């Protein structure tokens, strides 16, 4: 399986590295070599150990056994600082910004340009950040505080930070999960330049086409073990999937034909000042409605307002004929509404609580007897759904924060599907989920719709929207810009509406 590798010494390498967390053996004897001027992909299902491998490379985790080699000689990184000083820049899977610091300071923490007597040169910091953003083609104000940035913007800041190192090794753990097309291509452009200048790149993504577009070589992990390392040339996506999953995959967007019934969710002229205006739509039973738009278009905000987490200033929301009160999620839930939020770490899960308790949070009505918790019922409910969604865990009592990103996402889904909702709003339901599970989630959404559930799906993954939705709503700058039936929905029509060129587009056509 191993094809001849370049003769040169790898810039950074892992040899036979193992790492366990208690009973979980996240990595077992994995080796990986990164060469100058080469982009290396890391593929594997959720929980395969990709992020753990990266953290071992970056000095966040100390391997239990095995060595890290820098330019061929063993090194021991005692912390992220050591790795950074050795020229390794890392973008972690979950953005780790300082909410109170400005974007520019976030990028240069600990490395700010200085003036005489070691004083920080604030102007230079700002300028350097602005330059980085220009290079990435991103329009962010360097002096804006990081608090309140959308996930996508946060990820962009992380990318800018990693680039600012001019590192010899650039490691990126799912940097594109929250990004849309043009940002991704900009990023790839910059990364290619770096690579051509001699940097080694390690790249993780669950979007296989990105791997093929950017990388030359791929290493596959399964359940913490090394499966293969090989050049990408000559491989197909199916080959890669087979290596990751160990079997062939089913159809990716398994859309079932369903009959649509009465309107289950009706939103009329919903307005939240400064965020979105005059949003009206309805979702019928058995229907999957896609909600598309650019990053920052306000889709998540609409979802949050409908569910009642945010208040709305005007308009009304009806679920199965029942009017909802603004700002009351518990009433919305009682009416049969469920929302799978976009930020699983902050909104979807209580990271310090166990899997069981997290799933249980939405089901007190079912799991209490005479006002007291029924442990058995609570457990059964959690097990049922964790198994149904194939969450990979050791014990139900494990803290959710120790699961891999994709498995966390599954727990969020489990938590909400367990409420047997009539109307399900999913916000980026497959962000960070591997191809196998993604298909699983899609099948699940399809069958839910077939059972008569009304589904509103927000996604930045356009193929997903196009593959799954019966109708596509497109938002642009806080307003509903277009409603496109499935037959007419293509990348062109949706993007045209999303970028505000809908009218012009139609004129031209």
């Amino acid at each position, binding site marked *: 399986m191993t094809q001849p590798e370049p003769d040169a010494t790898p810039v950074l390498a892992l040899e036979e590295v*193992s790492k*366990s*967390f*208690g*009973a*979980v*053996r996240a990595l*077992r004897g994995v080796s990986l070599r990164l060469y100058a001027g080469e982009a290396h992909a890391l593929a594997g299902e959720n929980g395969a150990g990709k*992020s753990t491998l990266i*953290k071992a490379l970056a000095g*966040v*985790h100390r391997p*239990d*056994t095995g060595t890290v080699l820098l330019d061929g000689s063993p090194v021991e990184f005692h912390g992220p600082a050591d790795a950074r000083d050795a020229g390794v820049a890392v973008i972690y899977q979950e953005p780790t910004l300082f909410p109170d610091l400005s974007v520019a300071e976030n990028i240069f923490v600990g490395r700010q340009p200085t003036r005489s007597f070691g004083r920080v040169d604030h102007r230079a910091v700002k300028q350097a950040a602005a330059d980085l953003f220009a290079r990435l083609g991103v329009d962010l104000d360097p002096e804006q505080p990081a608090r309140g940035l959308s996930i996508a913007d946060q990820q962009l800041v992380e990318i800018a930070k990693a680039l600012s190192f001019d590192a010899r090794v650039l490691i990126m753990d799912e940097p594109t999960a929250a990004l849309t097309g043009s940002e991704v291509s900009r990023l790839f452009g910059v990364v290619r330049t770096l690579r051509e200048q001699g940097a080694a790149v390690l790249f993780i993504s669950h979007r296989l086409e990105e791997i093929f577009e950017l990388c030359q070589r791929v290493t596959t992990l399964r*359940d*913490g073990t090394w499966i293969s390392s090989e050049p990408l040339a000559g491989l197909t996506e199916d080959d890669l999937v087979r290596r990751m999953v160990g079997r062939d995959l089913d159809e990716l967007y398994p859309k079932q034909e369903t009959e649509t019934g009465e309107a289950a969710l009706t939103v009329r002229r919903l307005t939240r000042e400064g965020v979105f205006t005059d949003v009206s739509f309805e979702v019928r039973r058995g229907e999957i409605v896609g909600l598309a738009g650019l990053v920052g278009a306000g889709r998540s905000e609409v979802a949050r307002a409908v*569910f009642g*987490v945010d208040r709305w200033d005007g308009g009304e929301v009806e679920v199965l004929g029942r009017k909802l009160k603004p700002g009351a*999620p*518990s009433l*919305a*839930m009682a009416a049969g509404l469920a*929302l799978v*939020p976009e930020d699983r770490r*902050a*909104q*979807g*899960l*209580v*990271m*310090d*609580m166990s899997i069981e*308790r997290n799933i*249980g*949070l*939405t089901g*007190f009505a079912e799991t*209490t007897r005479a*006002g*007291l*918790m029924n442990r058995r019922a609570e457990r059964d409910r959690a097990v049922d759904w*964790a*198994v149904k969604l*194939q*969450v*990979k*865990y*050791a*014990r139900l009592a*494990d*803290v959710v*924060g*120790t699961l891999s990103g994709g498995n966390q996402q599954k727990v969020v889904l489990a*938590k909400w599907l367990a409420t047997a909702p009539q109307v399900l709003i999913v916000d980026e339901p497959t962000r960070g989920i591997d191809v196998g599970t993604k298909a699983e989630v899609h099948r699940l959404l399809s069958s839910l719709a077939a059972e008569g559930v009304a589904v509103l799906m927000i996604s930045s993954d356009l193929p997903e929207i196009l593959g799954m939705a019966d109708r596509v709503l497109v938002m642009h700058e806080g307003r509903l810009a277009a409603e496109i039936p499935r037959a007419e929905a293509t990348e062109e029509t949706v993007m045209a509406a999303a970028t505000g060129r809908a009218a012009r587009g139609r004129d031209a056509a």
Partner: protein
Amino acid sequence: MTDTTTKATARRGPGGAVRWDTAVGALFVVLLLCSFSFVDNFGNALNVSFLIGNTLPIALIALPMTLLVVSGEVDLSVGSTAGLSGAVMGALWNEGMSIETIIPLCLLLGVVCGLINGLLVTRLGLPSLAVTIGTMAAYRGIAQIILGSDSVTDFPSQYLDFGAGRIGDTFIPYAALPFLVLLAIAVVVLHATPVGRSLFAIGASEEAARFAGIRVKRLKLSMFVTTGLLSALTGVFWALHYASARYDNATGLELSVIAAVLLGGIDFDGGKGTLGGAIAGVFLLGTLQNVMSLLNVSAQSQIVVTGVLLVVSVLAPRVGRQIAQSRARRKATAVPLRPPAATS
């Protein structure tokens, strides 16, 4: 990520090692046994009843405080609320009102105090630490205005007896009975009802709790109100137990409660802890003070011991964990390959 691991293992310890609240409970039992056998005058019923009676105010407030802290908030005004309720009790008594009317009024006052704290925290979104530092001064000040320099001592003897007396010649003070009932209620609420589950969720991540449809503000508000109510009850008890209603009753009680609750392993970041631990912490400190006094340990040295105990209580689990981890790391190399536990 590693941060969550450490947090997670903090309570359970690697490989299901001893939890901190269990450890405090065990420590308490050991202390009791040692005191019974080796400390003169400790074991007799009168002393034990003194010990319980003097610890009751702290224990009473520790109940709602634990719930509040689990939900990620804190109330520093408990001592002042108790003082205020005592002061009002004294003032109304001096006015000639009947004690049977006064006590419910005082409890109502406690509810109002808690409501003010709760509304400021939940409606205005202010940090509870800041709010209750403010109300701590405000309530105490109002108590001072109401009762001034008076010290009311002539409460009816049957009430005073209830506050200070014990059942026959046993070691059980009368007041311990209602406390046991309240304790049972609190344990059930925190550990076996949706309310308790929700409090833990709110404390660990308020936003996630809100997204799960938990009525965060209402729950928090009701916790503040409960804390106010029980603080007022403590104030009434205090005035009867010490047969003295003064504006400065129960000064500094908040620190004692917090120290005890912390010792019991309740995490002030919210989301962690058990009532058993908190109560064990309360009585551990109370017993320790009693024993040290009997052994003629000076007040100054007692302060040092309390402080050391607090520091050790947070350091010990941490050190233990590190030792266990390094041992586990050594072992990991020797363990044979085993497929990971998966679901299906």
